[in-house]
């Protein structure tokens, strides 16, 4: 029953490096995507840095995980959004966003979809659960 499927939203609000929240949060997304739930992910506040392309953690001496975002669509996580205001406040544009997969038919790269804060708020209001990382 489609109406019984729980809507679970992940918000990513912290910067990707410096703490482990965002990385372990990614692990939760990948697991939950295997279950019968309606999963969406929103990058906002400093979380928008997590989906900035060209990240290189080599000099930090830690294993980066930006490449895993490139496989979100393969994990059937397709509802991936970025808050426009958060992005612009940090000097980022849509061109700075990394690719999260490619379209099965056209092989066109898929990027997170940029939304206005009000649109994100409306989506939040529909969720059963919101997990913040």
């Amino acid at each position, binding site marked *: 029953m489609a109406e019984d499927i*729980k809507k*679970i939203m992940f918000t990513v609000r*912290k910067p990707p490096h410096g703490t*482990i*929240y965002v990385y*372990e949060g990614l*692990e*939760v997304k990948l*697991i*939950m995507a*295997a*279950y*019968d*739930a309606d999963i969406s992910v929103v990058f906002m506040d400093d979380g928008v840095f997590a989906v900035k392309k060209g990240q290189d953690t080599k000099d930090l001496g830690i294993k980066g995980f930006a490449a895993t975002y490139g496989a979100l669509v393969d994990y059937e996580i397709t509802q991936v959004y970025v808050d426009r205001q958060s992005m612009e406040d940090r000097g980022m544009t849509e061109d700075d966003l990394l690719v999260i997969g490619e379209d099965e038919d056209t092989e066109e790269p898929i990027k997170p979809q940029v939304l206005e804060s009000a649109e994100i708020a409306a989506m939040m209001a529909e969720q*059963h*659960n919101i*997990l*913040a990382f």
Partner: protein
Amino acid sequence: MKLAVCIYEGPYNHAASDTAYNFIQAAIQKGHEIKGIFFYHDGVYNVTKLMEPPQDDRHISNRWSALGASGIDIVVCIAAAKRRGIVDDVLVPNVRISGLGQLTMMAIEADRLVVFGD
């Protein structure tokens, strides 16, 4: 209401564990059902029997263990635990190590999943 609780932060260092504990006690008193408690990130440190706080302070892991003894399912994330050296041998009684699938089931089965942490 059916509630599930997820705790992100370690004990003593951060109020999240205390706040979650107080929330759960209040929820039970109000007649709500706790579907489960899930420890993630540094939260996995909350249920080690190796902690030995001063006697005049609260004993956080014993407190969680007592809650587990009352029948509430308390789960420690295996991936987060392994990374931090938390294994079965160091856990207090009445808690168990399992996977993120358990958090998923809590999120699906509960009316609300309440997260404590930064």
